[in-house]
Structures are given as C-alpha cells and as structure tokens.
C-alpha cells in the first residue's frame, strides 16, 4: 500500500522569477501519509496546501450523495476536505485539511467512503439522487410500520462522516480564566491595529487569531504595501512591538469561539496539535475563559461561493483561497485556472496565479463592463476576459477538466448566447465577501443588511464592543488599519485608559470597482433538472432543495434550514448561509431582510469536547470529601459509600465476610456490646445570639424556648408547604447559643434556608449562624458497654443521673478537649464524642484501644441504617421524599399545637395534607422472617397475576435485623396508620410476598434501653 510518492510536487511554485515562494520553509521537508500513500511537503504547509502541491485534489466524499470533493477554502470555512486524522486513540474525525499543520509523520485518512476514496460504493446514492430531495425521509420508510428500526439502522450507518476513537483520550486539556481590558478577536490588519493602539495606552490586551500566525488576509496578498514595506513585513513589525509589551497576551492558533453574556468570551487554543508530538504535562488544547471590559471584533471576511451547475467538483475553489495557496504557501492549485468573478478581487487571483506561472484559462466576469486598474492589469497580461458571462457548469471526471460558459441576459437571470466549453483544471470562484459577523451575532448584536453591497454588517451592538475591518464591511486594508487604530484607542479609553490614536500608515493596495452580485448563476436548464447546484457543500443541499422547501411551505429560513439541513454541517454554513437565504428570498420574492438569518450559536468552529472538560475528569471531576478518620477506615478494610460528596465507611468486612455477614456482626455488637460509628459528616451549625431560641422556635416544628442549657432536643424542620425537610438533634450550649445538627446531605441546604429567613424574613432577630461541620470530628460510641469504654477515657460522671439522656457535657476524652452528647440514633445507650477535627483519628484510635477488652466493633452506614430502623427512626430523604408530613410519619408528637406559627404549620393545614388516606409510614413484616423485601418494592392490597395493579405505596427501608432475628421493613402506604394488622402483598418479578402491616418499631418498643 504505502509507497513513497516521488516528490514531484507538480504544483509547488519554483524559480526565482516569482515574488516569494510562500511562507513555507523549503529547507525543511516533512513527510506525511494520506490514505496510506506517503507524500512530502514543507514545514509551514497545511495538509491542504501540501496535498495541492502533490496535485491531490480528491480529498473527501460528501455527506448524502458521496460526491467526490476537493478543497474549497483556505481556513476554518472549509466544508469539504474533512480528514480522519492520526491513529488509535489519538484519531480525530472531521478535521479540516486546511487547518491541519503539517509535521513529520502525520497520518491522514479520507472519510465517509468505502472501500476507498476513488471507488466509493456509497456513491450509488447518486444514481438514486432523484429520489432523495430535501426531506425525502419524512415521506417514506413508514411501511411496514415495524420496519423503521431496520431502515434507521441503514441510514445511521450511511451517515456520520468520520469515526470516533475507540478508547480514552491520552492527551491533556486545560482551561484558564483571564481578564483583560481589550480582547481583540482576529489578527489581520484591523485586529493588529486595534491591539496596537489599545496596548500603547497601557491597557491589558489579549489578541487571538485562529491561524498559525498573525496577519490575516495580508499573508495571502502580494500586492499590498504598508509604509513602504511588503504587508507581511509590516505585520512582523507590529507583532514584534506587541510582543515586547508586558500587558499584551498574543495567542495564535486560538479561535475566539464563544461570545456569552456580559463580555465573557471563550478562546480555544490549539497548543501542541501542530507539533504532532506529546509534550509531557503540557495541554494539547486550552480553553481560555475571558472576561473583557471591551471587545474588538476583527474577524475579517469569508468569500462567497457562486452557485452553478456541479460547482462541487474537486478543483472548484474560492478565489481568495486559490490566491492564498499561491501567495502564502507557494502552491498553484491549478496550472490552468479559470476565474469566475463578480468583482475585482477575482482579478487579483488571476494576476497572482499568472505571475507565478499559471496559464489563466480565462476570466468569466459576471459584470457587463468590468473596468479599472485590476482589469487593465489582466488585459495587459493578455488574459482573456468574458464579460457579462455566466459559468454554466463545470465539467470533468473526479476533477475539473473544463467549464461551460455563456453570455447572460442583461438582467442576469438567463442566457442569451451559445454555451462554450473552456478547458481548465481549476475554477476559482470570486462571489464577493461576507463579513464574518458570527461573534457579533453570538453576542446578540443586530445585523443590518447593506443592499448596495449585498452583505450583512453589524448594526446595533448588545455588549460593549466594536467591529472593525472586514467584519464591519470595510474591505480595504487602509480602512481596516485606520479604523482598527481608531477603535482600539477608543475602546481603551472606555476601559479607563488614556492615549492617542497612532498615526495611520501609508497603504498601497489595488483599487476595486463595483461588483455585481448574482446568487444563482443562470444555467441552460432550470435548477434541479440537470446536474446539481450546491449551496451547502458538506450537507449536499442544492438550490433545488431550497426551492422545494419553500414550495412545500417551509418558508421561514429556520424551517428551510431544518428541512434541508442547510447550514447545519460542521462548517455551520460559513460559506453557504448567505447564498441560501438570498436564494430563498429570491424564490419567495421578498426582501433579504424579511427572510433574516438563522441564529449564530457557539462555538464559532467545532471545538474538542475534551478541551471544554479540561482537567475536570478522573479524580478531579468532583471532590470527594472525607472525614478525619478516613485513613483508619481505609487501613482497616472498610468499604465505602458515596453520600452526596462525602465518602463514608459503609461496612467493615472481615476476611471472607459478605455484606450481610459483616452488617449482622456490626449490628449485634452495637446492641450487645459496643460499636463505634464515624458520625463526622453530620451537618453542624452554631446558632448564636440573643434570639437564637426564638429563631429555632420558628424554624423547627416543636418548642425550643424552654430547653435547658446543656440539654439536647430532636427537631423536625419543615418547609412552608408542611413537608419534612430535615431533622437532627440540637443542643443548648448557652442561654444564647445552640449547636444544631442536620443530616449529612441536608447540611448546606439547611444553613442556606435559615440564613434566608434571618436575612429576608426576620432581620430583626439577633442571631448569627456559622457552619462548624468540619470543626468537629465525631465518634459515636454505641451500645450497652459504651459507658464502660468511655469511662476509661474520661473523668466525667457518666451515670444516668449525672449525665442524663439528651444532654451534653464538656470535658476531655482521651486527653482531648471534647463535647460529649448523650444522644442515640440506635435507641441504646450511646455517647457522641465531638473533638476538634485534628484529633479525630487520635480519638478514634483511643476509643478502639479502650474498647478492645469489650470487643468494640466499628460499624458503617449500613449497620447504622439497620439499627435506626429497628427502632423506627426515619432517614429524611429515604423514608421521606419531599411529599411526607410529620403526621404521615406518625410524628404528630413533634408538632407543636400551641405555637401560633412555625414554618410548615399553615402548609400542613391544607386539604390534601389532612386526608386520612395519604401515604403513611408503617412497619412491614414478611411471612418468611428471612425474606428481606427489596427497598423500592411496592405494596398492593389486591394482588393480580399480572401488572397492572393498584399500588398502595412502597418500601422505603428494608433490612435483615439480627437483633430482632428477622427481616424488618418500613414503608409508606395509603391510609397506613389504619391498616396495622392487615395482610398485604408485595408483588415481585415472578413471585409475590405476603406482608403484615405493623407499628414502625421493631425493637425496644418501650424505649427502655437508652439508659443502658
């Protein structure tokens, strides 16, 4: 397969008679492969210029008809030449050959063809193309109804262009925040001038250009001089000055790709793509997120293709691109070019090609009487000019071999002369320039249609910004620079800097005369009857398709877009949008302004998803929060559970233990001996101030004013709709100070909720809230032996009288200053020891050591769940889901009847919340005590052999309880409080279980164990 092509480089300009040989470094040859064949180019080439230099024109296949396609453009506007780049996990589909910089060893592959580019089986689609007008798929593939999935399979495999890599991306991507006074998008003459003028005031400037070097269109011109210097030298001079200024950031290969609210812009920088090697630790691409005080848009122009029959043949290119390949890369895209033009700019291409040794086939000028210096220059070189002619169609197989031209009627809508064939190997289309207004539009600026010049130009802007140069409709270098300098300094002044506008340089450039805009060149037969007149090249949308759409009633340009897919390809219509809407407006007989444009959306050019993701992947995707004892848990074989962002010890299996075995052991130990739980993740809030008690009284459903100092109370927090929001134990530390605990997941929400009420509803209350969640590490010593363990570490009197249930004592534990709370989430005697976080592990180890003689058993969240369920304690968010009231939970006892108001009181009084048939919390016991109901299973009264069945509710918590010696479950079921004793069914897949409804308390029903 791979044979080194002789580097004949037929199209590379040689000899010394031409002005320059392009900006490639001819002393540095570079070899690469395309579809397995080796070629060579030079450093500074793009894949596109190197392929052209090697006379390769056929580069890709189109989306729908699989038509052979070559290069159309020079830069990011390219719709056709899409490449599958590189191999393995570094492969990259749909990459524009025009933006791929050549490096040694580059591997490129054509796409969307099988088995190979020259003989593509998919091209049979062309035979049936008549059946495939725009939107054909809406009209067929409907029968038989069940066949759509099969049709779809085929359609999907035919579509899709390139291939995704098969494995993860080995490269690194980064993101960077930046701020500046002036962001300049585009580094052509206007952008350079604006950046220079702004920078000289001392402003912070970022100048970004998507190309490999600054200069923009100037790098593609050989007939422009600035201050007596060739344009490229002037560019170098300006760039050198900018580079010397410390507050200027220069970014090449950097596309300003998104313009968001309030002058927030993103820039996609390709950092290492062009060197083809991986630099360790250096990102392949970088997304800059810039907040700019002012923005200067200097994004230049994109040339318009002309719409004529078979205008998609390889060898039909944009005129400015043809010139760019010649001047910038030293490559002749053809030896015998034909130029079809609506304006003088086409002549510049003709001259540039002629002067580099091409034989110009002819210039087909749409204007009837072209005139002026450029036309004279062409005439003086003996170039044939066909004025008032149309290019009827291209000819050739695989590549342009000729063209048909004919004289047009005066109004440009028809032909009035014989069709003549002209031999040529390249057709350069000069259809006029469109200002690149994408970013302006993304920023919600309003476009204005300039009916004289047939272009959209920026109208009123929405953000603090200006457009200069080509993108503002100013098409001369002199004006671009003058305006750039002026606007650059104005923007700097608006950003708070002072300075004077630098003097504009002397510019010599060819003068242009008027153009004649025709959107669709007249042909021998109506469009759609013979050949195809392409508007959107990549998506194969033709002028006939656009007309069909309007005929079928899809008249809004947005409907046309979606029905035909024009402008929806990877180039987002950079070369097709204006032609499409102009053809639609002509067809409908309405003004272009009435048709309007489709919406410009980020990104300006497609941008790597990985770059946007940056380093927010893998371990850095989202923080994992751990407690002070985390290291111990890990070292002692715990398994873990994610609870929100926290990582909590789930259970501690001993060798060979299953989850069930480990949890059974942990649960038994906590009831019969002593267990130890890391409870550090519970939310903790310091509630402090003279009105703290009053505040809690409003926030919680129960009463708080009279709680004694050193005493604890359980509280339920409701929302104003009456539904349970959070719960926890709160302790009065001092007259004016409480220590509140919340659920692990609810902590942040509860704090925010309370702050909101303090700041906005009750600003008169003197209360300060401070999150102290992480100030404290918490070890819960639980079980009948807990007092014995703690006694070894502590000099407090731990007796029930001295230290009663629901109270708090300060002292030391294991020599560490601590707050000890006698509260219990299992119902058994328990002590929650809080110490400053730094001592969390020391405390844990001390307790483990002291407990060794009692066989102290660390337990995790799973056992914690079982233990609390044995006592019927709820978990907010598991046994409740935002639609459960205290009454539903059977917790009316915690709802004050006497307080005139608290949050949730009024909400609970609403009719549905008073309905006795609401879902209510109950216990469930299975017939078989060893059968553990699946959590989430549903309960029915009326069991049917098959679904559907009427459901009463679902199982919220379900475990095997070794302490009760059977399975237990909590459930919320309709009218549950009135169903105790009833037998109901739980239908599972393929079987069902009988359950008896009971009180949701399974162990220690009288609550006598709390004192040990």
């Amino acid at each position, binding site marked *: 397969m791979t044979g080194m092509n002789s580097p004949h480089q037929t199209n590379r300009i040689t000899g010394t008679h031409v002005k320059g040989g392009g900006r490639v470094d001819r002393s540095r040859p570079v070899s690469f492969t395309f579809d397995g064949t080796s070629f060579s180019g030079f450093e500074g080439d793009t894949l596109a210029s190197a392929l052209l230099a090697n006379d390769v024109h056929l580069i890709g296949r189109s989306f729908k008809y699989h038509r052979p396609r070559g290069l159309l453009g020079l830069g990011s506007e390219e719709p056709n030449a899409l490449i599958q780049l590189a191999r393995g996990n570094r492969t990259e589909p749909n990459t524009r050959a025009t933006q791929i910089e050549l490096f040694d060893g580059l591997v490129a592959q054509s796409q969307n063809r099988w088995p190979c580019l020259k003989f593509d089986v998919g091209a049979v689609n062309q035979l049936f193309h008549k059946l495939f007008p725009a939107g054909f798929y809406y009209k067929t593939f409907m029968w038989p109804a069940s066949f759509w999935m099969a049709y779809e399979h085929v359609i999907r495999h035919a579509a899709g262009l390139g291939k995704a890599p098969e494995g993860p991306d080995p490269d690194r991507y*980064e993101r960077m*925040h930046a701020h500046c006074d002036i962001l300049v998008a585009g580094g052509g003459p206007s952008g350079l001038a604006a950046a220079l003028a702004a920078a000289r005031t001392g402003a912070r400037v970022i100048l970004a250009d998507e190309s490999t070097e600054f200069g923009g269109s100037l790098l593609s011109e050989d007939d422009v001089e600035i201050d007596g210097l060739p344009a490229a030298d002037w560019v170098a001079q300006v760039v050198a000055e900018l580079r010397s200024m410390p507050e200027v950031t220069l970014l090449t290969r950097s596309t300003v790709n998104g313009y968001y609210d309030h002058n927030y812009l993103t820039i996609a920088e390709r950092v290492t793509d062009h060197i083809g090697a991986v630099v360790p630790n250096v990102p392949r691409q970088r997304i800059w997120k810039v907040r700019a005080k002012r923005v200067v848009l200097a994004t230049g122009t994109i040339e318009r293709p002309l719409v004529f029959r078979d205008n998609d043949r390889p060898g039909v290119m944009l005129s400015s691109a043809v010139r760019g390949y010649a001047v910038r890369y030293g490559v002749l895209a053809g030896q015998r070019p034909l130029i079809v033009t609506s304006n003088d700019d086409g002549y510049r291409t003709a001259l540039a090609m002629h002067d580099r040794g091409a034989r110009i086939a002819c210039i087909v000028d749409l204007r009837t009487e072209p005139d002026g210096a450029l036309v004279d220059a062409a005439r003086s070189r003996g170039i044939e000019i066909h004025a008032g002619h149309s290019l009827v169609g291209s000819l050739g197989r695989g590549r342009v071999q000729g063209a048909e031209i004919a004289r047009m009627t005066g109004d440009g809508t028809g032909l009035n002369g014989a069709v003549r064939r002209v031999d040529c190997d390249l057709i350069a289309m000069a259809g006029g320039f469109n200002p690149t207004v994408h970013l302006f539009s993304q920023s919600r600026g309003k476009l204005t249609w300039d009916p004289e010049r047939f272009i959209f130009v920026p109208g009123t802007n929405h953000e603090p910004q200006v457009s200069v140069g080509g993108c503002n409709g100013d098409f001369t270098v002199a004006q671009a620079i003058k305006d750039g300098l002026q606007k650059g300094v104005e923007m700097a002044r608006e950003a708070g800097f002072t300075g004077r506008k630098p003097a504009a340089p002397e510019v010599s450039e060819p003068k242009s005369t008027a153009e004649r805009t025709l959107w669709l060149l007249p042909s021998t037969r109506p469009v759609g009857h013979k050949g195809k007149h392409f508007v959107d090249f990549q998506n194969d949308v033709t002028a006939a398709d656009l007309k069909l759409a309007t005929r079928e009633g899809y008249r809004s340009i947005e409907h046309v877009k979606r029905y035909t897919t024009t402008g929806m390809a990877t180039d987002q219509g950079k070369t097709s949008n204006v032609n499409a809407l102009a053809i639609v407006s002509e067809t409908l007989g309405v003004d272009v302004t009435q048709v309007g444009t489709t919406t410009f959306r980020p990104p300006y050019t497609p941008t790597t998803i990985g770059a946007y993701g940056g380093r927010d992947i893998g371990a850095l995707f989202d923080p994992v929060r*751990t407690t002070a004892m985390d290291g111990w848990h890990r070292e002692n074989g715990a398994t873990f559970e994610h609870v929100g962002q926290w990582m909590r010890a789930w259970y501690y299996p001993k060798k060979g233990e299953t989850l069930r075995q480990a949890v059974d052991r942990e649960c038994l130990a906590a009831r019969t001996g002593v267990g130890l739980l890391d409870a550090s993740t519970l939310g903790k809030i310091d509630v402090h101030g003279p009105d703290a008690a009053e505040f809690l009284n409003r926030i919680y459903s129960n009463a708080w004013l009279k709680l004694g100092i050193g005493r604890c109370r359980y509280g339920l927090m409701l929302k104003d709709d009456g539904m349970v929001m959070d719960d926890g134990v709160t302790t009065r530390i001092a007259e004016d100070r409480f220590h509140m605990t919340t659920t692990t997941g609810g902590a942040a929400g509860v704090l925010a909720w309370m702050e909101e009420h303090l700041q906005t509803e009750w600003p008169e209350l003197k209360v300060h809230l*401070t999150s102290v969640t*992480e*100030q404290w590490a918490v070890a819960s010593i639980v079980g009948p032996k807990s007092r014995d363990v703690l006694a070894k570490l502590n000099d407090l009197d731990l007796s029930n009288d001295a230290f009663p249930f629901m109270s708090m004592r300060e002292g030391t534990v294991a020599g560490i200053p601590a707050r000890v709370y006698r509260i219990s989430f299992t119902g058994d005697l328990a002590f929650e020891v809080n110490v400053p976080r730094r001592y969390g592990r020391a405390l844990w180890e001390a307790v483990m050591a002291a407990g060794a003689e009692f066989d102290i058993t660390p337990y995790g969240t799973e056992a914690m769940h079982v233990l609390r369920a044995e006592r019927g304690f709820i978990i907010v968010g598991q046994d409740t889901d935002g639609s459960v009231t205290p009454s539903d939970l059977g917790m009316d006892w915690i709802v004050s009847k006497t307080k005139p108001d608290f949050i949730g009181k009024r909400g609970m009084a609403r009719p549905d919340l008073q309905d006795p048939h609401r879902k209510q919390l109950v216990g469930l016991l299975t017939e078989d005590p060893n059968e553990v109901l699946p959590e989430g299973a549903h309960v029915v009264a009326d069991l049917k052999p098959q679904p559907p069945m009427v459901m009463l509710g679902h199982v919220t918590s379900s475990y095997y309880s070794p302490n009760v010696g059977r399975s237990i479950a909590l459930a919320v079921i309709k009218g549950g409080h009135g169903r105790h004793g009833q037998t109901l069914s739980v239908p599972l897949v393929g079987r069902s279980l009988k359950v008896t409804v009971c009180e949701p308390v399974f162990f220690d029903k009288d609550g006598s164990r709390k004192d040990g």
Partner: protein
Amino acid sequence: MDEARALSALDGVTGHSGGAWDAGIVLTEVRFPTLLNLRGTAADAAFGAGVEAALGVVLPAAPNTVSQADERAVLWLAPDEWLVVATGEVEGLQGNLEDAVSGVFATVVDLSDNYVCIRIEGAQARRVLQKGWTLDLHPRAFGVGQCAQSMLAHAGAILRQTSDVPGYEVIVRPSFAKYTWDWLVDASAEYGHRVG
C-alpha cells in the same frame, strides 16, 4: 495539648515535588493557624474598638480586604463577618476577643479545625491559580492586603495574597483539602512544583 496527636487533612497527601520543570511553584501547608470567625456590626464603634484592642488589628471595613499586623490578620468575609487568622502566640486569643466584644451583639466561633490553609508561591503561581479561580489576580486587580471568597475549581475557598512573589494562601475546608492539593499539583504540572 498534645500536638503530636494532631493530624491535618493534608497529612499523607502532600507527597513529593514533581512536574515538568522547577518553575519555582512552592506548595506549603500552613499548619494549624488559629482561625476565628467573627460576627458583629461593623458600624458599631464599640465592636470595632473591641476587636482592635484584642487583636491589635483594625477591623477591615472594605469588602475583600485584609488588615494585618505581625502574625494577626483579619479578613473581610461579609459585611458583618470576618475571619481572624493568627499564628505564633495565640493562647487566650479567642477569650480575649470574646471579652472585648462581649458588650455588643457579636459572636466569635473557633474554626481552627474547620479549615486547612495552603500557601502557593512562585513565579507561575498566578497562572496556576487562574486555571481554576475566576477572579482577576492581575496585580492591577488583586494584591497583598486583599482577599476574596469564591471557588477554586470545585472547592469553595478563601484566597488572599500574602506576598508580591507572588504568594497566596488558599483556605478550604479540610474535606476539600486533598482535592485542592491534588488540583494544585495537577495545575502546576506544566511548570513543576516543590513541596515547601
């Protein structure tokens, strides 16, 4: 107290120096500074005077500024909230402060364990931080004597500039300390970092 038994959330995390080349990014944990959350009414002269008397530092009134004297710094966090960062001799500091403001509606909460403080210094420190810190750290916008609260990547953080090197301190909650440290090391990879 028994400092030997005190563990920071970064113990076992900070690891070794690494990265591409030594660009002088130095990452250091500032171990166990005393951190006190102070709430009160800025406009209340007695409150301001009390704070100054207890700490020897003027209460910063301007948002996002820091008052500093020797080993005491007071960071503005909110119109009625400050963070006292103290190193060196801190014995009795909280009590003194509490006493000094006891006459007014003010609270002092010890948060010394509620945060971890990481110092990042070096020529590229600003660039490293800007990978995940959205606020402008350019000297024209931020400097010594200023602080701000925002997110450093995905961790809520208090940031203040401590030197013109530049050097900064990043204060995060301990459960985010490992993430933050790992993030800083990763962000420094381009330049290389040293553990101070």
